[in-house]
Protein backbone atom coordinates (compact mmCIF):
# COMPACT_ATOMS: atom_id res chain seq x y z
CA UNK A 1 0.00 0.00 0.00
CA UNK A 2 0.98 3.59 -0.27
CA UNK A 3 2.81 5.68 2.27
CA UNK A 4 1.14 7.51 5.13
CA UNK A 5 2.63 10.36 7.12
CA UNK A 6 2.42 11.86 10.60
CA UNK A 7 2.58 15.53 11.63
CA UNK A 8 5.86 14.57 13.39
CA UNK A 9 7.40 13.83 9.97
CA UNK A 10 7.48 10.06 10.13
CA UNK A 11 6.41 7.86 7.23
CA UNK A 12 4.72 4.47 7.60
CA UNK A 13 4.22 1.74 4.98
CA UNK A 14 2.06 -1.32 5.80
CA UNK A 15 2.57 -4.66 4.06
CA UNK A 16 -0.02 -7.36 3.38
CA UNK A 17 0.73 -9.12 6.68
CA UNK A 18 -0.20 -6.03 8.69
CA UNK A 19 3.40 -5.17 9.56
CA UNK A 20 4.35 -1.52 9.11
CA UNK A 21 7.78 -0.09 8.35
CA UNK A 22 8.49 3.34 9.86
CA UNK A 23 11.10 5.99 9.14
CA UNK A 24 11.60 9.75 9.05
CA UNK A 25 10.64 11.80 6.01
CA UNK A 26 13.03 13.51 3.56
CA UNK A 27 11.83 16.79 5.06
CA UNK A 28 12.72 15.64 8.58
CA UNK A 29 16.23 14.53 7.64
CA UNK A 30 16.81 17.76 5.74
CA UNK A 31 15.73 19.86 8.72
CA UNK A 32 17.94 17.85 11.09
CA UNK A 33 21.05 17.86 8.93
CA UNK A 34 23.76 15.18 9.07
CA UNK A 35 22.41 12.31 11.18
CA UNK A 36 25.15 10.85 13.39
CA UNK A 37 23.22 8.71 15.88
CA UNK A 38 19.95 6.80 16.18
CA UNK A 39 18.38 5.17 19.19
CA UNK A 40 15.94 2.43 18.11
CA UNK A 41 13.07 0.76 19.99
CA UNK A 42 13.31 -2.63 21.64
CA UNK A 43 12.29 -5.62 19.50
CA UNK A 44 9.37 -7.48 21.10
CA UNK A 45 8.18 -4.49 23.08
CA UNK A 46 4.66 -3.10 22.67
CA UNK A 47 4.13 0.62 22.18
CA UNK A 48 1.06 2.82 21.93
CA UNK A 49 0.56 5.33 19.13
CA UNK A 50 2.48 8.59 19.85
CA UNK A 51 4.87 6.86 22.27
CA UNK A 52 8.49 7.96 22.03
CA UNK A 53 10.25 4.91 20.61
CA UNK A 54 13.60 6.30 19.59
CA UNK A 55 15.83 9.27 19.00
CA UNK A 56 17.54 10.66 15.94
CA UNK A 57 20.48 12.99 16.43
CA UNK A 58 22.31 15.18 13.97
CA UNK A 59 25.51 17.09 14.63
CA UNK A 60 23.44 20.01 15.91
CA UNK A 61 20.22 18.58 17.31
CA UNK A 62 18.36 15.65 18.82
CA UNK A 63 14.75 14.75 17.96
CA UNK A 64 12.39 12.12 19.33
CA UNK A 65 11.00 9.43 17.07
CA UNK A 66 7.36 8.57 17.77
CA UNK A 67 5.43 5.48 16.83
CA UNK A 68 2.64 6.45 14.41
CA UNK A 69 0.56 3.44 15.52
CA UNK A 70 0.11 0.98 18.39
CA UNK A 71 1.65 -2.46 18.22
CA UNK A 72 4.62 -4.71 18.83
CA UNK A 73 8.03 -3.90 17.36
CA UNK A 74 9.16 -6.87 15.27
CA UNK A 75 12.45 -5.60 13.83
CA UNK A 76 14.79 -2.62 13.94
CA UNK A 77 17.23 -1.47 11.26
CA UNK A 78 20.64 -2.53 12.57
CA UNK A 79 22.23 -1.26 9.35
CA UNK A 80 20.94 2.22 10.18
CA UNK A 81 22.31 1.95 13.72
CA UNK A 82 25.74 1.20 12.25
CA UNK A 83 25.48 3.87 9.54
CA UNK A 84 23.08 6.62 10.66
CA UNK A 85 23.82 8.62 7.50
CA UNK A 86 21.37 6.32 5.67
CA UNK A 87 18.63 8.43 7.27
CA UNK A 88 19.93 11.32 5.15
CA UNK A 89 20.87 9.54 1.94
CA UNK A 90 17.90 7.16 1.65
CA UNK A 91 15.29 8.14 4.26
CA UNK A 92 12.31 6.35 2.71
CA UNK A 93 14.03 3.09 1.86
CA UNK A 94 17.27 1.70 3.37
CA UNK A 95 17.14 4.40 6.07
CA UNK A 96 14.02 2.90 7.72
CA UNK A 97 13.96 2.81 11.55
CA UNK A 98 11.73 -0.05 12.77
CA UNK A 99 8.92 -2.47 11.87
CA UNK A 100 5.80 -2.74 14.01
CA UNK A 101 2.88 -5.24 13.97
CA UNK A 102 -0.25 -3.10 14.06
CA UNK A 103 -2.69 -3.85 16.90
CA UNK A 104 -5.32 -1.47 15.52
CA UNK A 105 -5.11 -0.98 11.73
CA UNK A 106 -7.89 1.64 11.91
CA UNK A 107 -5.31 4.06 13.35
CA UNK A 108 -3.94 4.39 9.81
CA UNK A 109 -7.10 6.26 8.83
CA UNK A 110 -6.02 9.13 11.08
CA UNK A 111 -2.72 9.61 9.22
CA UNK A 112 -2.02 11.79 6.20
CA UNK A 113 -1.66 10.55 2.66
CA UNK A 114 1.09 11.88 0.41
CA UNK A 115 -0.98 14.82 -0.86
CA UNK A 116 -2.05 15.90 2.62
CA UNK A 117 1.54 15.70 3.89
CA UNK A 118 2.78 17.75 0.93
CA UNK A 119 0.14 20.31 1.83
CA UNK A 120 1.36 20.36 5.46
CA UNK A 121 4.92 21.02 4.31
CA UNK A 122 3.78 23.77 2.00
CA UNK A 123 2.04 25.56 4.85
CA UNK A 124 4.80 24.94 7.40
Amino acid at each position, binding site marked *: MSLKFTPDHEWIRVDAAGVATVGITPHAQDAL*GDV*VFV*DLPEVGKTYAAHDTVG*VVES*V*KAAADVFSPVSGEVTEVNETLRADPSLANSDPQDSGWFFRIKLSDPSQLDGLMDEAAYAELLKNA
Partner: protein
Amino acid sequence: MSHSADSELILTPLHALHLELGARMVPFAGYAMPVQYPKGILAEHLHTRQSAGLFDISHMGQVALRGDDAAAALETLVPMDIHGLPEGKQRYALFTNEQGGVLDDLMVIPRQRADGAGQELFLIVNAACKVQDVALLQTLSDRCEVVPMPEQALLALQGPQAVQTFARLVPEAADLVFMTGRWMDVPTEGGAIRIFATRSGYTGEDGLEISVTAADAQRLARLLLSLPEVEPIGLGARDTLRLEAGLCLYGHDIDTSTTPVEAGLTWAIQKVRRHGGARAGGFPGAEVILAQIDQPNLAPRRRIGLIGLDRTPVREGTELLAADGRSAGRVSSGSFAPSAGGPVAMAYVAAEFAVPAGTLYAQVRGRAVPMQLQPMPFVPHRYWRG
Protein backbone atom coordinates in the same frame (compact mmCIF):
# COMPACT_ATOMS: atom_id res chain seq x y z
CA MET B 1 25.89 46.20 8.64
CA SER B 2 22.22 46.79 7.89
CA HIS B 3 18.92 45.75 9.44
CA SER B 4 16.53 43.51 7.54
CA ALA B 5 13.10 45.03 7.23
CA ASP B 6 11.01 42.10 8.39
CA SER B 7 12.90 40.43 11.21
CA GLU B 8 15.01 42.95 13.14
CA LEU B 9 18.04 40.73 12.58
CA ILE B 10 21.22 42.49 11.55
CA LEU B 11 22.61 41.40 8.20
CA THR B 12 26.34 41.10 7.61
CA PRO B 13 27.92 42.58 4.45
CA LEU B 14 27.99 39.03 3.03
CA HIS B 15 24.27 38.34 3.49
CA ALA B 16 23.44 38.32 -0.24
CA LEU B 17 26.39 36.02 -0.90
CA HIS B 18 25.21 33.57 1.80
CA LEU B 19 21.76 33.39 0.20
CA GLU B 20 23.29 32.94 -3.23
CA LEU B 21 25.41 30.06 -1.89
CA GLY B 22 22.28 28.37 -0.50
CA ALA B 23 23.08 28.90 3.18
CA ARG B 24 20.60 28.00 5.88
CA MET B 25 20.35 31.22 7.87
CA VAL B 26 19.69 31.29 11.62
CA PRO B 27 19.45 34.06 14.20
CA PHE B 28 22.64 34.29 16.26
CA ALA B 29 23.44 37.09 18.72
CA GLY B 30 21.00 39.36 16.88
CA TYR B 31 22.44 38.61 13.44
CA ALA B 32 21.22 36.48 10.56
CA MET B 33 24.11 34.04 10.16
CA PRO B 34 24.76 31.00 7.96
CA VAL B 35 24.63 27.84 10.11
CA GLN B 36 25.46 25.64 7.13
CA TYR B 37 25.66 25.61 3.35
CA PRO B 38 24.17 22.85 1.13
CA LYS B 39 27.06 20.43 1.74
CA GLY B 40 26.22 20.31 5.44
CA ILE B 41 28.09 20.56 8.72
CA LEU B 42 30.00 17.26 8.45
CA ALA B 43 31.39 17.95 4.98
CA GLU B 44 32.20 21.56 5.89
CA HIS B 45 34.00 20.50 9.06
CA LEU B 46 36.08 17.87 7.25
CA HIS B 47 36.84 20.24 4.38
CA THR B 48 38.26 22.79 6.84
CA ARG B 49 40.46 20.12 8.45
CA GLN B 50 41.93 19.08 5.11
CA SER B 51 41.87 22.16 2.88
CA ALA B 52 40.63 25.72 3.52
CA GLY B 53 37.29 27.03 4.77
CA LEU B 54 35.95 30.59 4.58
CA PHE B 55 33.85 31.82 7.51
CA ASP B 56 31.86 35.03 7.81
CA ILE B 57 32.39 36.20 11.39
CA SER B 58 31.39 39.79 10.78
CA HIS B 59 29.01 39.60 13.73
CA MET B 60 32.01 39.80 16.07
CA GLY B 61 32.88 43.16 17.56
CA GLN B 62 35.95 45.12 16.41
CA VAL B 63 37.13 47.96 18.62
CA ALA B 64 40.27 50.11 18.71
CA LEU B 65 41.77 51.76 21.78
CA ARG B 66 43.89 54.81 20.98
CA GLY B 67 46.28 56.90 22.99
CA ASP B 68 49.60 56.47 24.81
CA ASP B 69 47.86 55.15 27.92
CA ALA B 70 45.68 52.54 26.12
CA ALA B 71 47.70 49.46 27.11
CA ALA B 72 47.93 50.44 30.78
CA ALA B 73 44.23 51.31 30.78
CA LEU B 74 43.21 47.97 29.25
CA GLU B 75 45.30 46.16 31.87
CA THR B 76 42.81 47.43 34.49
CA LEU B 77 40.13 45.24 32.83
CA VAL B 78 42.10 42.10 31.87
CA PRO B 79 44.67 39.97 33.73
CA MET B 80 47.00 39.93 30.70
CA ASP B 81 50.31 41.58 29.87
CA ILE B 82 49.17 44.17 27.33
CA HIS B 83 51.90 46.71 28.06
CA GLY B 84 54.60 44.25 27.04
CA LEU B 85 52.88 43.21 23.81
CA PRO B 86 54.91 44.35 20.78
CA GLU B 87 53.30 45.77 17.66
CA GLY B 88 51.99 42.99 15.43
CA LYS B 89 51.83 40.37 18.21
CA GLN B 90 48.36 39.10 19.13
CA ARG B 91 47.25 37.86 22.54
CA TYR B 92 44.19 36.02 23.93
CA ALA B 93 42.60 37.98 26.78
CA LEU B 94 39.68 37.88 29.23
CA PHE B 95 37.53 40.63 30.71
CA THR B 96 37.01 39.63 34.34
CA ASN B 97 34.53 40.72 37.01
CA GLU B 98 35.01 41.45 40.72
CA GLN B 99 34.14 37.83 41.60
CA GLY B 100 36.89 36.54 39.32
CA GLY B 101 34.38 35.41 36.67
CA VAL B 102 34.76 35.98 32.95
CA LEU B 103 32.75 38.74 31.23
CA ASP B 104 34.03 37.89 27.75
CA ASP B 105 37.08 36.55 25.95
CA LEU B 106 38.79 38.58 23.26
CA MET B 107 41.85 38.99 21.04
CA VAL B 108 44.18 41.98 21.37
CA ILE B 109 46.91 43.16 19.01
CA PRO B 110 48.83 46.45 18.89
CA ARG B 111 49.00 47.72 15.30
CA GLN B 112 49.46 50.84 13.22
CA ARG B 113 46.24 52.76 12.64
CA ALA B 114 44.72 52.43 9.17
CA ASP B 115 45.32 56.17 8.61
CA GLY B 116 48.97 55.88 9.64
CA ALA B 117 48.49 58.31 12.54
CA GLY B 118 50.25 56.16 15.13
CA GLN B 119 49.55 52.97 17.03
CA GLU B 120 46.32 51.54 18.43
CA LEU B 121 45.21 48.39 20.25
CA PHE B 122 42.91 46.39 18.01
CA LEU B 123 40.38 44.21 19.88
CA ILE B 124 38.04 41.50 18.61
CA VAL B 125 35.22 40.57 21.01
CA ASN B 126 32.25 38.19 20.91
CA ALA B 127 29.10 39.23 19.09
CA ALA B 128 26.78 38.45 21.99
CA CYS B 129 28.91 40.54 24.40
CA LYS B 130 29.98 43.44 22.25
CA VAL B 131 27.49 46.04 23.48
CA GLN B 132 28.41 45.28 27.07
CA ASP B 133 32.14 45.13 26.19
CA VAL B 134 32.09 48.54 24.52
CA ALA B 135 30.26 49.96 27.56
CA LEU B 136 32.96 48.44 29.79
CA LEU B 137 35.73 49.88 27.59
CA GLN B 138 34.03 53.29 27.70
CA THR B 139 34.86 53.38 31.42
CA LEU B 140 38.45 53.88 30.20
CA SER B 141 37.52 56.89 28.05
CA ASP B 142 39.34 59.35 30.29
CA ARG B 143 42.55 57.43 29.58
CA CYS B 144 42.17 56.40 25.94
CA GLU B 145 39.88 56.85 22.97
CA VAL B 146 37.45 53.93 22.47
CA VAL B 147 36.58 53.44 18.79
CA PRO B 148 33.99 50.76 17.85
CA MET B 149 34.40 49.76 14.18
CA PRO B 150 30.98 48.57 12.99
CA GLU B 151 32.00 49.43 9.43
CA GLN B 152 34.47 46.54 9.47
CA ALA B 153 33.62 43.00 8.38
CA LEU B 154 35.59 39.97 9.58
CA LEU B 155 36.40 36.84 7.58
CA ALA B 156 38.28 33.76 8.71
CA LEU B 157 40.18 31.53 6.29
CA GLN B 158 41.05 28.34 8.15
CA GLY B 159 42.65 25.02 7.34
CA PRO B 160 46.01 23.44 6.52
CA GLN B 161 45.96 24.98 3.02
CA ALA B 162 44.54 28.37 4.07
CA VAL B 163 47.75 30.38 4.25
CA GLN B 164 49.53 28.90 1.24
CA THR B 165 46.36 29.44 -0.77
CA PHE B 166 46.00 33.04 0.41
CA ALA B 167 49.71 33.64 -0.24
CA ARG B 168 49.09 33.15 -3.97
CA LEU B 169 47.22 36.47 -3.73
CA VAL B 170 49.40 38.12 -1.06
CA PRO B 171 52.83 36.46 -0.74
CA GLU B 172 53.76 38.26 2.52
CA ALA B 173 50.88 36.50 4.30
CA ALA B 174 53.16 33.44 4.51
CA ASP B 175 55.64 35.47 6.60
CA LEU B 176 53.21 35.68 9.51
CA VAL B 177 53.54 33.17 12.34
CA PHE B 178 50.79 32.09 14.74
CA MET B 179 49.35 35.02 16.72
CA THR B 180 50.91 37.79 14.66
CA GLY B 181 49.26 40.23 12.28
CA ARG B 182 49.87 42.99 9.75
CA TRP B 183 48.25 45.23 7.18
CA MET B 184 48.27 43.92 3.62
CA ASP B 185 46.91 44.83 0.21
CA VAL B 186 45.06 42.17 -1.75
CA PRO B 187 45.48 42.97 -5.47
CA THR B 188 42.24 42.59 -7.44
CA GLU B 189 41.06 43.64 -10.87
CA GLY B 190 38.91 46.30 -9.27
CA GLY B 191 41.83 47.74 -7.28
CA ALA B 192 43.69 46.67 -4.15
CA ILE B 193 41.72 45.73 -1.02
CA ARG B 194 43.33 46.87 2.23
CA ILE B 195 43.06 44.24 4.98
CA PHE B 196 44.42 43.62 8.44
CA ALA B 197 45.17 39.90 8.79
CA THR B 198 46.26 37.88 11.80
CA ARG B 199 47.50 34.30 11.68
CA SER B 200 45.00 32.92 14.17
CA GLY B 201 41.54 31.46 14.35
CA TYR B 202 39.02 29.33 16.17
CA THR B 203 39.36 25.91 14.56
CA GLY B 204 42.68 24.57 15.82
CA GLU B 205 43.98 24.81 12.26
CA ASP B 206 46.47 27.18 10.71
CA GLY B 207 44.77 30.13 9.10
CA LEU B 208 43.98 33.81 9.01
CA GLU B 209 41.40 36.18 10.42
CA ILE B 210 40.90 39.09 8.07
CA SER B 211 39.43 42.47 8.96
CA VAL B 212 38.16 44.31 5.88
CA THR B 213 35.78 47.21 5.33
CA ALA B 214 32.15 46.24 4.81
CA ALA B 215 32.36 47.88 1.39
CA ASP B 216 35.12 45.51 0.24
CA ALA B 217 34.01 42.40 2.14
CA GLN B 218 31.89 40.78 -0.55
CA ARG B 219 34.48 41.36 -3.26
CA LEU B 220 37.17 39.79 -1.07
CA ALA B 221 34.95 36.84 -0.10
CA ARG B 222 34.10 36.13 -3.75
CA LEU B 223 37.78 36.28 -4.65
CA LEU B 224 38.66 33.80 -1.89
CA LEU B 225 35.80 31.48 -2.87
CA SER B 226 37.10 31.49 -6.45
CA LEU B 227 40.24 29.69 -5.23
CA PRO B 228 39.84 25.93 -5.74
CA GLU B 229 40.82 25.02 -2.16
CA VAL B 230 38.26 27.30 -0.53
CA GLU B 231 34.67 26.39 0.45
CA PRO B 232 32.22 28.46 2.52
CA ILE B 233 31.76 27.15 6.08
CA GLY B 234 28.89 27.94 8.45
CA LEU B 235 28.61 28.47 12.18
CA GLY B 236 27.61 24.82 12.73
CA ALA B 237 31.02 23.55 11.62
CA ARG B 238 32.72 26.47 13.36
CA ASP B 239 31.27 25.12 16.62
CA THR B 240 32.35 21.50 16.07
CA LEU B 241 35.81 22.62 14.91
CA ARG B 242 36.40 24.77 17.99
CA LEU B 243 35.03 22.05 20.28
CA GLU B 244 37.47 19.48 18.87
CA ALA B 245 40.23 22.08 19.27
CA GLY B 246 39.30 22.40 22.98
CA LEU B 247 38.58 26.13 22.60
CA CYS B 248 36.02 27.74 24.92
CA LEU B 249 32.77 29.22 23.64
CA TYR B 250 31.76 32.22 25.73
CA GLY B 251 28.37 31.77 27.44
CA HIS B 252 28.84 28.00 27.44
CA ASP B 253 32.35 26.98 28.55
CA ILE B 254 33.20 30.26 30.25
CA ASP B 255 30.93 32.87 31.79
CA THR B 256 30.60 35.09 34.84
CA SER B 257 30.40 32.01 37.10
CA THR B 258 33.71 30.47 35.92
CA THR B 259 37.13 31.77 36.86
CA PRO B 260 40.07 31.57 34.42
CA VAL B 261 41.69 28.99 36.71
CA GLU B 262 38.60 26.75 36.76
CA ALA B 263 38.41 27.13 32.97
CA GLY B 264 41.99 25.93 32.55
CA LEU B 265 43.01 29.32 31.14
CA THR B 266 45.74 30.09 33.69
CA TRP B 267 48.28 29.95 30.82
CA ALA B 268 46.65 33.11 29.43
CA ILE B 269 47.62 35.11 32.54
CA GLN B 270 51.24 36.19 32.14
CA LYS B 271 53.61 36.06 35.12
CA VAL B 272 53.95 39.85 35.21
CA ARG B 273 50.28 40.09 36.32
CA ARG B 274 50.52 37.30 38.94
CA HIS B 275 51.75 37.54 42.52
CA GLY B 276 55.42 38.49 42.47
CA GLY B 277 55.12 40.07 39.00
CA ALA B 278 56.03 43.70 38.31
CA ARG B 279 52.38 44.61 37.58
CA ALA B 280 50.67 41.97 39.73
CA GLY B 281 46.91 42.35 40.17
CA GLY B 282 45.13 45.57 39.32
CA PHE B 283 42.31 43.90 37.35
CA PRO B 284 38.77 42.99 38.49
CA GLY B 285 38.69 39.86 40.64
CA ALA B 286 42.50 39.79 41.04
CA GLU B 287 42.26 38.66 44.64
CA VAL B 288 40.21 35.58 43.76
CA ILE B 289 42.05 34.68 40.55
CA LEU B 290 45.60 35.13 41.85
CA ALA B 291 44.82 33.18 45.02
CA GLN B 292 43.50 30.32 42.84
CA ILE B 293 46.69 30.39 40.76
CA ASP B 294 48.79 30.15 43.94
CA GLN B 295 46.57 27.49 45.49
CA PRO B 296 44.65 25.58 42.82
CA ASN B 297 42.62 23.77 45.50
CA LEU B 298 40.80 27.10 46.02
CA ALA B 299 39.23 26.60 42.57
CA PRO B 300 36.33 24.25 43.29
CA ARG B 301 35.72 23.09 39.72
CA ARG B 302 37.73 22.21 36.63
CA ARG B 303 36.95 22.34 32.94
CA ILE B 304 37.73 18.92 31.49
CA GLY B 305 37.49 17.12 28.17
CA LEU B 306 35.47 13.92 27.73
CA ILE B 307 35.16 11.42 24.90
CA GLY B 308 32.11 9.20 24.57
CA LEU B 309 32.71 5.47 24.98
CA ASP B 310 29.59 4.73 22.95
CA ARG B 311 28.01 6.59 20.01
CA THR B 312 25.47 8.66 21.95
CA PRO B 313 26.06 12.41 21.54
CA VAL B 314 26.12 14.16 24.93
CA ARG B 315 24.85 17.73 24.86
CA GLU B 316 25.29 20.90 26.88
CA GLY B 317 23.61 20.78 30.29
CA THR B 318 23.83 17.00 30.70
CA GLU B 319 24.56 15.90 34.26
CA LEU B 320 27.64 13.74 34.91
CA LEU B 321 27.70 11.14 37.68
CA ALA B 322 30.61 9.26 39.17
CA ALA B 323 30.57 5.44 39.25
CA ASP B 324 29.25 5.58 42.82
CA GLY B 325 26.32 7.76 41.74
CA ARG B 326 27.57 11.04 43.18
CA SER B 327 27.02 14.11 41.00
CA ALA B 328 30.35 15.13 39.46
CA GLY B 329 29.32 18.09 37.31
CA ARG B 330 27.72 19.16 34.07
CA VAL B 331 28.55 19.29 30.35
CA SER B 332 29.19 22.83 29.06
CA SER B 333 29.55 21.93 25.34
CA GLY B 334 29.05 18.61 23.63
CA SER B 335 28.53 17.24 20.16
CA PHE B 336 29.44 14.56 17.72
CA ALA B 337 33.02 15.40 16.66
CA PRO B 338 33.45 14.71 12.94
CA SER B 339 37.27 14.44 12.91
CA ALA B 340 37.52 12.66 16.25
CA GLY B 341 34.84 10.31 14.88
CA GLY B 342 32.65 10.16 17.97
CA PRO B 343 31.04 12.19 20.72
CA VAL B 344 33.19 14.66 22.67
CA ALA B 345 32.31 17.15 25.38
CA MET B 346 33.69 19.79 27.67
CA ALA B 347 32.40 19.82 31.21
CA TYR B 348 32.87 21.40 34.59
CA VAL B 349 33.40 18.88 37.36
CA ALA B 350 34.34 19.13 41.02
CA ALA B 351 38.13 19.06 41.29
CA GLU B 352 38.15 15.57 42.85
CA PHE B 353 36.68 14.10 39.64
CA ALA B 354 39.25 15.71 37.33
CA VAL B 355 41.29 12.50 37.30
CA PRO B 356 43.30 11.60 34.16
CA ALA B 357 41.50 8.88 32.14
CA GLY B 358 38.72 8.73 34.75
CA THR B 359 35.25 7.56 33.72
CA LEU B 360 32.08 9.57 34.29
CA TYR B 361 28.50 8.70 33.34
CA ALA B 362 26.45 11.19 31.33
CA GLN B 363 22.73 11.01 32.13
CA VAL B 364 21.07 10.91 28.70
CA ARG B 365 17.34 10.10 28.47
CA GLY B 366 17.52 8.04 31.65
CA ARG B 367 20.56 6.07 30.55
CA ALA B 368 24.12 6.31 31.88
CA VAL B 369 26.42 6.96 28.92
CA PRO B 370 30.06 6.27 29.84
CA MET B 371 32.60 8.97 28.98
CA GLN B 372 36.31 9.05 29.60
CA LEU B 373 38.36 12.09 30.60
CA GLN B 374 40.74 13.02 27.84
CA PRO B 375 43.25 15.88 27.62
CA MET B 376 42.27 18.61 25.16
CA PRO B 377 42.53 19.37 22.31
CA PHE B 378 40.68 16.31 21.02
CA VAL B 379 42.27 16.92 17.61
CA PRO B 380 45.86 18.26 17.63
CA HIS B 381 46.35 21.96 16.91
CA ARG B 382 48.23 22.67 13.71
CA TYR B 383 49.32 26.26 14.26
CA TRP B 384 52.29 27.63 12.31
CA ARG B 385 54.86 28.85 14.82
CA GLY B 386 57.68 29.30 12.31
